């Protein structure tokens, strides 16, 4: 069992959630309640990582953030390392790949909050932030927890983009799924099996959370 790889995956998952959640809350809510020109295009763009092979995303990231490019130099100035073969690079790639997994459930959750409740909140004297915190967030939270679970589980299992951007540096960029691949390559079936079972259990737990919350939303809370 490669504990370092599992810890790294967990750290990557946690950091991805932490970075992505505020962005997804802002984007998901805006897409749910606002109408603006080009909304369809924005939605399509945010959903793109669902269809693109992760290796393609990884490739473009490497090209865009390569040494000598403006984005690459800015990244290095900000983080202190290059995008390739660094945890920071891995994190950026992970955030990008996970955008639709975070934004879509949150958008659906905010769409399910009737506009009239926002209006009723305004007529109760609540400003925009109070309405968000006291009315919208409590009603949308199952969708938000779903997004967190999906992003975390998806990050644990991400392989293609991790391999493209990070390689497999132990403790730095070798995540659990890369470690499993390495174990199999090294004919260590037992090691691969333990790691796989651990990831399977974590993914199942995440799915249970998502489905449990979805059922709760469908059925409503019973007294």
């Amino acid at each position, binding site marked *: 069992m490669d504990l370092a790889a599992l810890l790294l995956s967990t750290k990557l998952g946690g950091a991805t959630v932490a970075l992505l959640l505020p962005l997804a809350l802002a984007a998901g809510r805006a897409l749910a309640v606002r109408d603006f020109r080009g909304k369809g295009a924005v939605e399509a763009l945010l959903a793109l990582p669902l269809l693109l092979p992760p290796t393609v995303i990884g490739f473009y990231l490497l090209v865009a953030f390569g040494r000598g490019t403006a984005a690459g130099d800015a990244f290095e100035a900000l983080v202190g390392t290059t995008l390739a073969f660094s945890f920071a690079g891995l994190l950026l790639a992970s955030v990008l790949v996970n955008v639709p997994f975070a934004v879509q459930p949150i958008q659906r959750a905010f769409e399910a909050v009737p506009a009239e*409740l926002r209006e*009723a909140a305004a*007529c*109760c*004297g609540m400003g925009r932030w*109070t309405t968000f915190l006291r009315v919208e967030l*409590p009603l949308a939270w199952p969708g938000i927890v779903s997004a967190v679970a999906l992003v975390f589980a998806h990050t644990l299992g991400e392989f293609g983009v991790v391999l493209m951007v990070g390689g497999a540096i132990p403790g730095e960029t070798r995540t659990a799924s890369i470690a499993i691949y390495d174990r199999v390559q090294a004919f260590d079936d037992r090691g691969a099996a333990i790691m796989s079972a651990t990831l399977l259990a974590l993914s199942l737990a995440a799915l249970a959370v998502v489905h449990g919350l979805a059922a709760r939303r469908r059925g409503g809370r019973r*007294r």
Partner: protein
Amino acid sequence: MEGLVVACRQDAPIPLDARFACGPRETLALVGPSGAGKTTLLRAIAGLARVADCTVAIGGETWSDPARGIDLPAHRRAVGFVFQSYALFPHMTALGNVVAALGGLPAREAEARAREWLRRVNLEGLEDRHPRALSGGQQQRVAMARALARRPRVLLLDEPFAAVDKVTRRKLYAELAELRGALEIPCVLVTHDLDEAAMLADRMAILRRGATLQDGPPDEVLRRPASVEVARLVDMRNVFAGRLAGHDAARGTSLVEWAGLRLEARACPRFAAGDRIAWCIPTSEIVLHRADRASRGERENPVEGGVATAMRMGDATVVALAPDAAPGDLLHFSVPTHVAQRNGLVPGARARVSLLADAIHAMPPAGG
């Protein structure tokens, strides 16, 4: 003036050209068909709807005035708004819903005031229930308590009785009337139910395509519509074309010529003898002559004809009479069902009625 003054104009998306005022302690009903702009006007007062040119002022305070660049956001307008669907916060209890409208108060004071309001709307003991565990009528009461607890400067009601059954509605009417008696603020009620408006409002404004057609006490609007269009909107069934024959100054009446008959009518000095007019009379002001016994009232605008239809509607029967003088102009009147039976009012039967002179109201002719 401490009341509410509203003037809204816009061409699209919903054309509006309405102005009205509502004094403190007064209930104004905005009445009209679907799409008349009633709800848009209510939402414009609350700051929920964007109307291109809308001035809203209450008691010297301006909430919206495009000319002066004033447009307070909804949460800064002290309104109590009861939505048609109530829009209760589903994750909060009844108490939580009312407390939610008392953001500026310390928690204990807010809770005490919310409990007091729930008691006033007869929901004592149900404070901890969530909206889904309350009946429609109870939800409406929570919405009313939530709207009033924050001591609004105006109460806005958007078809608040549309979603409850008839029995509950009757109870809620009485409760609202009682609550209104204790409130010193203007109240604007949007409804398409004329009976509801007549029962609850001190004044009603008839709207069509966003424009105020008539504004006045319900009894006046319902009995003396300003135009044929208003008459149709207030469901006046007896509207006919005629001519003004003259005025009888001594009796204080006017004479209306209709289908060769001369009808004595309420004085209408705005029209001159010979003018084409439209006239109307409420169904309740046509009196059936008893078949078995003549009465004094029979001298008042008697009309004879054949019964075209007699439709029983519970305790009352609505009869359409085809007058001999004008068989195409059906006169509708309503009598208790037992009276209809006793007088043999079935299709084909003969009947005589009197059109009460004081209820005959002259209007400009249709399209005039």
